Structures are given as structure tokens and as C-alpha cells.
């Protein structure tokens, strides 16, 4: 009798945190859903100058896509280096630690670095490009770690088979390991995007402005984003929270659909990776 009670107690104890998370999640969704009344197709596609959200949504998208385009390739190549080429030793351990540290840097500090280096030193000014580089820095640890995991999960036998047939090391990796790791790599890029999609502090003074005339015409133009808009309205303009529920909901939906697509992608590609079973 005692054992069964113990098990039941443990089960309940483990279940409570899960329930708490679910409650918190649904409460957030509930708050956001209060903004759904203000949303309709028209608002999403009308220019901000006419009370819509168009430039903000597109601006957020531009920012995310550019950041992914930079951190994706760099992250994957770094992961390949770390897993396949890096000699075990002090330098590699330092690099490893540096990546962990980068992940822990507060976003406002990254934003400050972005401002002083990308905007001022490199002369990019408050721009899309500076935002790309700054967000890429934040995405990098996620992409690198996720890609490392994806690469490590590919059976070494593939690479060995290629090597035994007379390929160079890089050819073996690029023709067997990388294609097999691709789904995992893509998933980690998407998760990286989801991580920075709502980033405000990092892009606060590196790429955003409250209003632009139309969409940015070059990477050197500043951009409007959903998160920045929420921040400014509440803090600088003192607007009531209800005004930005709609914006917040749109941002939330973008991030949620990104995370969901990562899960769907991963499940879909599991079928094509029979060696995982």
C-alpha cells in the first residue's frame, strides 16, 4: 500500500509543474485574445500611416529573414568545424565556452554592442543591416548548438562508407552527414528565429524607428517592428495596454507559428531518417 501511495504522490508532484505551465500559457493566450477584437485582415494589410500594421509586420519579417540568412550558414559551418575538425584541446574548449557565454549575454548588452560596433564603428547607422547582424549574434548559439546535435545524430557509418570509397573528408561530410543533418539544422534555425522574433532590447537602438514612410528600400534604412511598436506606445507614448493587444497578438502568433512549423518539420523528416529509430 505504501509503495502505491508513494507512486501516486510522485506522479502528482511531477504533474503540478506541468499544470502550472499550462495555466500560465493559457492565461497569456487569454490576455492576448482580448486583442483579437481589434484585428481584421484590413488592419494587417494597411499602412501604419493609416492605422494599420503592414509595415510593422513586414519589417519584423525582413529583420528575421536577414538575421537567419546570416546566422544560418555561419552557424552550420561553425557546427561542422566543432564536431568534425576541431582538435580536442584548450583552444576548442575556449571556443566552446565562448559560445555558451554568448548565449547568456543580456539582449540589451548585445544591443549596445550592436549600436557601438555595427551602427557607429561600421557606419551602418540605425538600419536593417545593423539589426540583422545584431540579431544574428543572438541566434548564433542556438543555431550552432542545434546543428551540432543534428550532426552528431547522423551515424558515423555514413561518413565512413564515403571515406572508404575514396572521398576527401569534406566531401564525405558534405555528401552524407550534412544532407542527413539538414532537417535538424533547419529546425534549429527556425527555433533561433522564434527566439529573436520578439527581441526588443537588441533592436531598440540598432534598427528600429517608430514610423517610416513605406517599407525600407535598402538594408541601410531603419525598420518598423511589432515589438518596438509595443514598447514605444506603452513607455514613451503612455498609451493604455489595450491599444497594443492587437499588435502583441500578431507578434505572438508569428512566434507560435514559427515554433509550430519547427515541430511539424521535425516530425515530417523523422520519417526520412530511419536510422533514428
Amino acid at each position: 500500500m505504501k509503495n502505491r501511495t508513494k507512486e501516486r504522490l510522485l506522479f502528482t508532484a511531477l504533474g503540478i509543474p506541468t499544470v502550472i505551465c499550462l495555466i500560465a500559457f493559457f492565461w497569456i493566450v487569454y490576455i492576448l485574445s482580448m486583442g483579437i477584437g481589434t484585428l481584421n485582415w484590413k488592419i494587417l494589410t494597411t499602412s501604419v500611416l493609416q492605422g494599420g500594421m503592414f509595415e510593422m509586420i513586414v519589417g519584423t519579417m525582413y529583420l528575421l529573414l536577414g538575421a537567419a540568412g546570416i546566422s544560418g550558414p555561419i552557424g552550420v559551418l561553425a557546427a561542422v568545424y566543432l564536431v568534425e575538425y576541431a582538435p580536442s584541446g584548450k583552444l576548442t574548449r575556449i571556443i566552446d565556452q565562448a559560445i555558451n557565454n554568448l548565449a547568456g549575454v543580456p539582449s540589451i548588452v548585445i544591443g549596445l554592442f550592436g549600436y557601438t560596433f555595427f551602427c557607429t564603428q561600421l557606419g551602418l547607422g540605425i538600419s536593417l543591416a545593423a539589426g540583422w547582424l545584431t540579431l544574428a549574434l543572438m541566434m548564433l548559439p542556438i543555431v550552432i548548438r542545434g546543428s551540432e546535435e543534428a550532426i552528431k545524430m547522423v551515424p558515423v557509418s555514413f561518413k565512413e562508407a564515403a571515406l572508404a570509397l575514396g572521398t576527401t573528408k569534406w566531401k564525405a561530410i558534405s555528401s552524407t552527414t550534412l544532407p542527413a543533418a539538414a532537417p535538424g539544422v533547419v529546425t534549429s534555425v527556425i527555433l533561433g528565429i522564434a527566439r529573436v522574433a520578439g527581441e526588443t532590447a537588441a533592436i531598440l537602438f540598432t534598427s528600429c524607428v517608430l514610423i517610416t514612410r513605406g517599407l525600407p528600400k535598402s538594408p541601410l534604412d531603419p525598420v518598423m517592428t511589432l515589438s518596438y511598436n509595443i514598447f514605444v506606445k506603452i513607455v514613451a507614448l503612455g498609451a493604455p495596454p489595450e491599444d497594443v493587444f492587437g499588435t502583441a497578438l500578431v507578434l505572438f502568433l508569428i512566434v507560435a507559428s514559427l515554433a509550430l512549423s519547427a515541430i511539424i518539420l521535425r516530425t515530417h523528416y523523422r520519417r526520412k531518417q530511419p536510422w533514428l529509430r
Partner: protein
Amino acid sequence: MIDGAKIDIRNLNVWFGEKHVLKDVSLKIKDNAVTAVMGPSGCGKTTLIRAINRMNDVIAGSRTSGEIYIGGDNIYDSNTNVYELRRKVGMVFQKPNPLPKSIYENVTFGPKIHKMASGKSFDEIVEESLKEAALWNEVKDRMHDSAFSLSGGQQQRLCIARALAVKPEVILMDEPCSALDPAATAKIEQLIRTLTEDYTVIIVTHNMQQAARVSDFTVFLYLGKVIEYGETKRIFENPENVLTEKYITGEFG
């Protein structure tokens, strides 16, 4: 002792870190024959064959000394083209390892790397190699299916076809049947006998009956040293060394 040697191994020593795995191995491997490498676990069988296509090089911390002559050239010479060596000396692994591609692409992988064909002629190479590996009839209608849709025995024959596609001279096999059922094993043993016509085969095996069935010559390794080497029939019926006799009679394994 062995004339017409295809592979001449002289004073081969291999270390993995501090561990001295192969000690002063000298062998002459006959061409167009099957040579079995036998011995208890950990005696260096796999290390020995991996030395012949220099696959030990990819293991961090490995060190090799000595020479291996194939066709008159020392493959451990500093200006050896390792990639060409691995084309000439093919390898089949213990656990079938098809590439995560279609059956067709598995076979064309090697020829593509070595630029051995183009366009239509790939079809011919694929057919030829799959026929040589006794797999053609079973897969000719589903060449573009994933290699993983094949059974274990079929996958192993695919790996053999893949190795044959680059027209090697030597084929190294590391316990190729140990992951397979008896029926698949029998098919592959049959296949090995037909290969000696055109290739030199070296097969590592744990299975003494297999060595007796399949090979012309046998090497008995123990703790990294060659204990005995000669014609299979003679070794099994009349072993010269007491260790060999003990291994064959199953006193240790």
C-alpha cells in the same frame, strides 16, 4: 612462401595512443584468392585490414610504421594518393552501411567521386555492379527506392556492389556476415567465391567454419602478432603452432 603476392606487408606496427595493437606484422597476400584473418576478439584483425586501405588514418591518435606494398608501391609513402588507394582497395563493413540515398545513388556514389563515368554510362555501371553482387534481379524494378528499404542481407550486397562500382583490385571485408541471418550469409559466402576471379579478397571472420568454407589462405592473429599463416586446409587440418590448434579446437575464442 606465397608467390604472386598482391599485397606485401612488411613490419607493420600500429598504435592507438599508447596501445600497441599490431606488432611487426609481415605477410604476403596472394592475388585472386580469399585470405581469411582469424583470431580472438581484440587481436587486431580489423586494425590489420584497415591498415591496407589506410582507414586507420582517420582515427585520432593512431600511428603506423612499416610498409605495405600494393602493385609495387608503398602505400604509406608520403606522396601516396590516399583517395586513389581507397578506390583500388574497397571495404565492406561489419554492419551494412548504405548511404542515406536511393539504391541507384548508392552505387553511383563512388564512380561520381572518381569521375569514372557520365550521364547514361552510370546506368551501365549500376547494372554491372549489382549483377556482380548478385543483387540485380531483386532491385532492378526499384532502383530509386531508399537503400534502407532493403533487408540486411540485401543492404550488405548493395555495399558490395557499391565497392565494386569503382573497379577495385582488392576487397577488404570486416566480418561481413556477422549481422546477417544464415540464409543471407550463405548468399554472401557464395558471392565471395565468385569474386576471386577478378579481385583479391581479404575477409576478417570470427566464424571458423566460415573461414574454412570460404578462404584459400588463413592468417591467425593473436594479441597483434601473426602466429600462423598458410593454406586454409593445412591450417585447419595440421596447425603448426600450439596456439593455433587451441583456437581452432575452441579452447579459447
